[in-house]
């Protein structure tokens, strides 16, 4: 610690240069924090379903292929399953395509049977939902986002489902209540969600009637999930609609992977950013040491050993990179809520930020080591020859 004031003063010897270098590293780590967190969120998605007692059954070959509604009854008969519900991907937005809404047609009784522990919603609102054919229950965050209130009519534009007989893609719902999630960690994953009646959807759509997107099962004993999943899939083996049953989290992973390898793309961007940063910061550090050769030689005359001079230059590089990384990661943490708004359904956490510190240390060592070795190997007599 006693060297810190000296290292700090040395770092700011050329203020403008250090400031620009610092800013470039800050921006790189701001990007790192945001992109790495998004990549982490895609790799570790929140299912939107709490607990490990939920299974999801989809078509074996693609979650975009439907299952016959008749499968529901067969799955109900599997021992160990307490409730089964069914859902279909509606794919809709409100007013503009950027306002994507996770609207799901649900069967009221079975849905709340499977998810009875997941949501906070009053009995009165569930009752109102049952009694209103065009009713919808909306997540409180979504209500707040668009300033909706109970009684409002909400038109949604589906990107998939046309209505019969008009062929219109526009569906209108009446808000009868709102809900929240019990588990705060699921809040962002559920923030863009609203439910409406499956009956309305199935009767109103112009194609795909009598099919469902996927089934969600609640099981009595979570330790039996693998065995129960096998039993479900065995029911439909060799049929025209073979199934794949998996825990809810795995389902989300498969769902997200439809969008492509997000992690690879994000890491490729980060790789390019840090590759450039290595040259920029490395060049700055080399230049900084080159300019200070007489000063480093003076330190050696005062009795600073080769190892200590090496340590001072490395410490300077560490201080620069850690300071900039700290600011950059702090900023990224601050902007995560804004990013989360643009990535509804993806659960963002700051879990990916600590590796940023490790990256900063690695960066500091890579850019600091060559000039530090040069400083260490400095011959005092030669270095002082031009300036004594």
């Amino acid at each position, binding site marked *: 610690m006693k060297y810190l004031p000296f290292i700090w003063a040395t770092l700011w010897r050329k203020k403008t240069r250090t400031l620009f270098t610092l800013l470039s590293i800050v921006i790189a780590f701001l990007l790192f924090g945001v992109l790495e967190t998004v990549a982490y969120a895609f790799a570790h998605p929140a299912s939107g379903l709490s607990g490990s007692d939920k299974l999801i059954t989809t078509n074996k070959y693609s979650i975009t292929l439907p299952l016959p509604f008749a499968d529901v009854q067969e799955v109900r008969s599997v021992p160990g399953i307490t409730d089964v519900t069914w859902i279909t991907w509606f794919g809709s937005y409100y007013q503009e395509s950027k306002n994507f809404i996770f609207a799901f047609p649900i069967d009221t009784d079975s849905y709340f049977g499977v998810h009875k522990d997941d949501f906070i919603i009053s009995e009165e609102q569930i009752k109102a939902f049952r009694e209103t054919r065009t009713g919808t229950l909306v997540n409180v965050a979504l209500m707040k986002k668009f300033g909706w209130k109970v009684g409002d009519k909400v038109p949604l534009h589906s990107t998939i489902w046309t209505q019969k007989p008009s062929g219109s893609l526009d569906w209108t719902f009446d808000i009868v209540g709102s809900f929240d999630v019990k588990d705060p960690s699921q809040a962002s994953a559920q923030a863009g969600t609203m439910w409406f009646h499956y009956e309305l959807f199935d009767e109103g759509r112009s194609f795909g009637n009598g099919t469902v997107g996927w089934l969600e099962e609640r099981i009595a004993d979570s330790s039996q999930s693998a065995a129960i999943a096998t039993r479900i899939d065995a029911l439909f083996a060799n049929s025209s609609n073979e199934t794949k049953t998996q825990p809810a989290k795995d389902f989300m992973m498969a769902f997200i992977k439809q969008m492509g390898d997000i992690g690879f793309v994000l890491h490729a961007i980060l790789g390019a950013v840090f590759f450039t940063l290595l040259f920029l910061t490395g060049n700055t550090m080399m230049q900084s040491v080159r300019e200070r050769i007489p000063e480093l030689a003076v330190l050696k005359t005062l009795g600073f050993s*080769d190892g200590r001079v090496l340590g001072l230059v490395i410490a300077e590089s560490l201080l620069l990179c850690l300071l900039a990384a700290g600011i950059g990661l702090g900023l990224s943490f601050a902007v995560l809520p804004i990013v989360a708004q643009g990535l509804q359904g993806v659960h963002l956490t700051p879990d990916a930020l600590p590796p940023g510190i490790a990256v900063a240390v690695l960066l500091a060592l890579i850019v600091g080591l060559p000039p530090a070795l040069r400083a260490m190997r400095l011959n005092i007599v030669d270095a002082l020859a031009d*300036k004594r």
Partner: protein
Amino acid sequence: MSGAIVSLRNVVKRYARGKQIVDVLEKLNLDIAQGEFVALMGPSGSGKTTLLNLIGGLDTPTSGEITVAGQRLDQLKEGGLARWRARHVGFVFQFYNLMPMLSAQRNVELPLLLTHLSAAQRKTNALAALTLVGIADRARHKPNELSGGQAQRVAIARALVADPTILVCDEPTGDLDRKSADDVLHLLQMLSREHGKSIVMVTHDPKAAEFAGRQLHMDKGALLEVGTLAA
């Protein structure tokens, strides 16, 4: 000379310049007593700075023995020489070689970073050294805010602060006007006379050499005693 603080015996220093071997010092012998102020003069290329580097532990001889403050420097490796320099030598350079981003006080504290002194003790000692050289009032100023004479006083304070056995000065007045040079030389003289510091000073200036108690002349790597004054 018995009880010498500096003792050189048959010291040879050769440099390789490409394929050519350059003899800089040839079987040189020298003794400097504790508290002695020695001026080393001679033409450029005569080996003055090389001799100074050897006495200050910045360089090692090709052959021969160098003993300073009881330590055989020719037997030390880099790490040992660095520790020895920190403990026993203070350096003063022609162009001061202060750290431009540090205040005078922080510059003087630099050698104390190698000790176990606390921050408060380092500050106290640095201010004491600045007071000794008569420039404590400029402690918070950076080198570019000091005159040449003031900067050289700060450099001398830095050389003194760890209480070294010997001061090694390479043309300490070479960049100063006459008045500032005389002030610095009086200061060195005072350090030798009143504080018992052994000083070896390289200079081209005969007037500066007159401040020393003993003048040595170097030519082509050999030493010639010119005169000894009553110290």
